[in-house]
């Protein structure tokens, strides 16, 4: 099964990491794994475009099936491999509802990170405004506070008692925040969540390799 799967991925990319965590959780280790470099523009290379015309990573194949949207790949793997590995969908109705809610709220969190931390990457020089940077930074801070609030009333995982697709989807984004220096003292509940999940085997086994070799940034230290 796993041998029929191929994943093209880039290190540190939350969308790629999600799929890698899902594959580990469902006991699908042994898939064909190809690491590419964003810096070298390899995500726009022929290999990727053959699977993903959008020239984006992750690019994922299962036999003749292609699934490049990370949420889609995670949902597909959970559904198709329901009876193997760990169950990523809670039994309890309240937890399932919360799982879907947090999964899709994860899009807001990642968007706000991109708009603030990667402002210069996405906005050409002549279109940049301090007012926008400031607004985006405030937006990111408010968004992170929302998630800190969630972890004050739920735990240990995003949907409650069980590790679920919500964590598969959102943990890589939370890890990204701490990689960029988010202060554990300012956001203790998120820090606790981060510390709980980072040692989970599926997460540990797929931890971005370049994160192990180098210190993170301190961009968010004062947030």
């Amino acid at each position, binding site marked *: 099964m796993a041998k029929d799967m191929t994943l093209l991925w880039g290190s540190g990319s939350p969308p790629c990491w999600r799929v890698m965590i899902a594959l580990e959780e469902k006991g699908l280790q042994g898939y064909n794994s190809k690491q590419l470099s964003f810096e070298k523009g390899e995500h726009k290379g022929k290999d990727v475009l053959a699977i993903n015309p959008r020239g984006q990573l992750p690019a994922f194949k299962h036999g003749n099936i292609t*699934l*490049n949207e990370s949420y889609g790949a995670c949902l597909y793997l959970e559904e198709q491999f329901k009876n193997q590995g760990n169950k990523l969908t809670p039994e309890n109705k309240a937890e399932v509802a919360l799982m879907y809610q947090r999964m899709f709220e994860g899009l807001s969190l990642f968007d706000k990170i991109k708009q603030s931390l990667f402002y210069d990457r996405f906005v050409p020089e002549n279109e940049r405004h301090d007012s926008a940077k400031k607004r985006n930074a405030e937006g990111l801070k408010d968004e992170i506070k929302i998630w800190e609030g969630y972890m004050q009333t739920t735990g240990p995982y995003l949907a409650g008692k069980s590790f679920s697709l919500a964590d598969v989807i959102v943990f890589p984004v939370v890890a990204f925040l701490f990689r960029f220096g988010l202060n554990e003292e300012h956001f203790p509940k998120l820090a606790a969540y981060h510390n709980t999940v980072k040692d989970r085997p599926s997460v540990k086994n797929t931890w971005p390799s370049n994160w192990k070799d180098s210190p993170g940034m301190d961009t968010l230290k004062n947030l």
Partner: protein
Amino acid sequence: MAKSMYLLWGSGSCPCWRVMITLEEKKLQGYKQKLLSFEKEEHKSKEVLEINPRGQLPSFKHGDDIINESTGACLYLENQFKSQGNKLIPDSPAEQALMYQRMMEGLTLYEKLNLVAFYDFYAPEGERHDSALKRNKDNLVTELQLWERYLENVAAGRYLAGGFSLADVVVFPSLAYAFRYGLSAGRYPKLAKYYSLLKDRPSIKATWPPKWFQIEQRSESLKDI
């Protein structure tokens, strides 16, 4: 079942429309609902904030459970009510994968449409640039051409992932919105065919937006795309 559901919605909002289509498809008519006005800022009212602290619509409750994220709510409803109404997630691996792929790509399509039709919402006065709007328009054209390709063989019963599915639930509202805001059917014939095939589907017809947001000022926003 439906009686324990409560939907707060706004007219012309694609995310709201997705949830409403799903409720119809799953035979959950009879849910409690309240139409709110974006123009009057009712999406920031206390009633909404109590369910959705983000002050956004849709806001949706099923008993005590809240799911305000539209795609999440649609997935939740399909999974909780699998055995009633229409099946919206195909079983076959190939169709299912394609459905999830197109469903999520539908969110990208929606974003790119908004970045043109509602550019001024994203960029306050003083931060707007012709170069940015042009880039957004070019990106939208590229995006729409992708969807023209995806719908190359569109026919009755042959939608985004075969039979009508959650991919269509997510994407159809965005295309209806695009045509309403001036998108040319001539330039996008496959999209236009998809639109005409689905516009009379009962779940879609029953939930068609009573009106579109700021349509008077924006009905031609996408005319040149």
